[in-house]
Structure formats: C-alpha cells, structure tokens
C-alpha cells in the first residue's frame, strides 16, 4: 500500500518535476533565417543579431510570453550588394526603422509539443498580426523552439517602387527561426 502510494505520487509528481520555465535564451544556438525567390530562384538569408526575451512553461502555455527584437543591420540578404540595398528607403529604411520586433499576445497548446504563437510583428513602422506554429523539442541542456511562417513583404512596404514588382522578387518570404533556451 505504501509502495502503491509512492508510485502514484511519483507519477503525479513527474510532470511537475519536468515542468520548466524557459527564460534564458542561448543566442549562439538560436537563428532567424529567411528564404525568398528572385527571378524564380530561391535565395537564402538571415539575421545575425537579435535578442529574445521569453518565459515559457510548456505546462502553462497560456502564461507564456515572448518578444524578439531583430537588428536589421545584421542582415545577410544573399549578397553584399543586396545587404547594402536592403538598408535603403525602398526596403527597410533602416536609418528610420533599425529594428523589427515581434511581441507575443497569446500561446495555445496544439498537443504533441506543438504550440500556436500569436503576436504582432512590427517592421518599417507597420504592424501585422501573425499566427505562427511552433514546435518545442525538449533537450538535455537546451530546448529548442522552431517556428516558420510566410511573411508578405509588401504588407510592410518592404521593397517599394521599382521593387514592388513581385515577378522579380517574390512577395512571399519564408521566415524560419529556432530559439534555444534553458530554464529552471
């Protein structure tokens, strides 16, 4: 009877023992990448510098929050020429809008370590709501959160004027991120 009670308690206690609130992001193991089509050809890019703040307990997703701030000057847009071009007024207008920010509003559990992250992305002075599926992979040292979504660049005025022609540079930009974090 005592043994049974002990086992029962262990079983009940185990989720709590595994419950971790992830708060410390590991920048070196985290990445924000994107891919877009230029003349029908896929081009890869990414951002080297971004800061993430998060508090996430897989057992209490409704209490989770996350903000990501991306330094647009750290872009790799596929080539030096494109990196330079992206700073200009037609693209990010970086002197006026140096950062992109995402602020979460709601996290919902979808089951099987998958979550839906809702929030607002602000880029070049324009804000749009996003709904991003995120998968959570628990790890021994750090756990990872992988998400991807399609950003329509023209929603944010990214690539105006002559660049608004989506036959040359596609409107859809596939954004992928991986946030590695530890918690306690």
């Amino acid at each position: 009877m005592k043994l049974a009670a002990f086992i029962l308690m262990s079983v009940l206690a185990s989720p709590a023992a595994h419950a971790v609130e992830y708060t410390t992001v590991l920048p070196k193991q985290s990445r924000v990448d994107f891919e877009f089509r230029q003349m029908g050809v896929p081009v890869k890019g990414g951002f080297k510098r971004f800061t993430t703040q998060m508090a996430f307990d897989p057992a209490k997703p409704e209490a989770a929050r996350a903000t990501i701030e991306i330094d647009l000057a750290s872009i790799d847009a596929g080539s030096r020429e494109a990196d330079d071009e992206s700073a200009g007024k037609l693209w990010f207008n970086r002197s006026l809008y140096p950062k992109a920010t995402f602020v979460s509003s709601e996290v919902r559990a979808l089951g099987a370590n998958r979550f839906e992250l809702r929030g607002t992305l602000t880029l070049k002075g324009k804000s749009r709501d996003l709904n991003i599926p995120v998968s959570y992979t628990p790890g021994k040292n750090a756990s990872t959160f992988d998400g991807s979504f399609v950003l329509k660049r023209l929603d944010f005025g990214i690539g105006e004027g002559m660049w608004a022609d989506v036959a040359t540079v596609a409107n859809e930009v596939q954004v992928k991120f991986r946030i590695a974090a530890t918690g306690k």
Partner: protein
Amino acid sequence: MTAANRYSTTAIALHWLVALLIFATFPLGLYMVDLPLSPDKLKLYSYHKWIGVSVFLLVAIRLGWRLTHTPPPLPNDIAAWQRRASSVAHGLLYLLMVAIPVSGWLMSSAKGFQTVWFGVLPLPDLVEKNRELGDLLATAHQVLNYSLAALVTLHVAAALKHHFVERRPFLQRMGLGRKERT
C-alpha cells in the same frame, strides 16, 4: 564549290546559332555587371545565365556532331603552319565555349544564386556558397571571356583574310554566299 567544301547544314546552323548567342550574351555580361542593383539588373543576370546555359547545351551538341562528322578539308595550298594554327584555334574555341558557361555556372553557385534555366530547370549547385571562391570564379569567367573575344577576333580575321585578301571562296564553307564554285 562542291558539298565537300562546305560544312554540313547542321554544323552551319549550330555555328551561327551559337555565334549569335555569344554575340548577344557577351556584351550583355559586360553591361550588366556595373549596373546598380535593380529589378532590371536581376532580369538581365537571369537572361545572361539562360543564354549561357543554352550555349553550353548547343556546344555539347556541336562537339558531338564535330566528332562524328569530318569537316570540309582546307584548300591544299594553305600553309602548314596555318593548318596547325587553325586546328589549335578551333580546339581552343571549343574549350572556351565549354569552360565559360561552366565557370559562370560555378560562380553563380559560389555566390549563392542557383542557375535555373529559363526559370524552370534548376542546375545543381556543384559548389557551396563561398565568397572567396565566388570572387575567384568571377575573375576566371572574365579572363576566359576576354580570351574568347581575342580568339573570335582572330577566327573572324582569318576567315575574312582567306576570303577577301586571298580571294578564296572561304565564307561559303560556313554557308555564307553562293554554294557553287567561283
């Protein structure tokens, strides 16, 4: 001029088609590299690559044709050194017509822009994206192209000299002018 003094119609057609494409894409390449980045520049780069891939494929067909068909012999009184020079020059022309598109293809891969023929058929990236390699291949592409320009100048000058200075029906060999002997 007998049929034996003229290249086959297939060889002639391939020769002029490749010549036309090279004469289009060479100046296009020179023009586009110094343009500031714009959608037009991206388009021109794509067109340049599409033409380059086309040249490569046509030259592959030409090589196959050349290796299975005997070209018309040169007139008997052409000096031996000129025969050797002609043979070396033609070998080099073929070599460059293969090496130039290949160097462009590899450069595209090294620079991180895959070549997709007519925006439809992707060519595999044989090398990884690598800035230094991309710059090196760009230089190689340029040097090979200037070599080709020099060789084509020689090729055209030699043909014109045989035809107009030596007054041989030389251009007829490649389908220009009347077929019959003068």
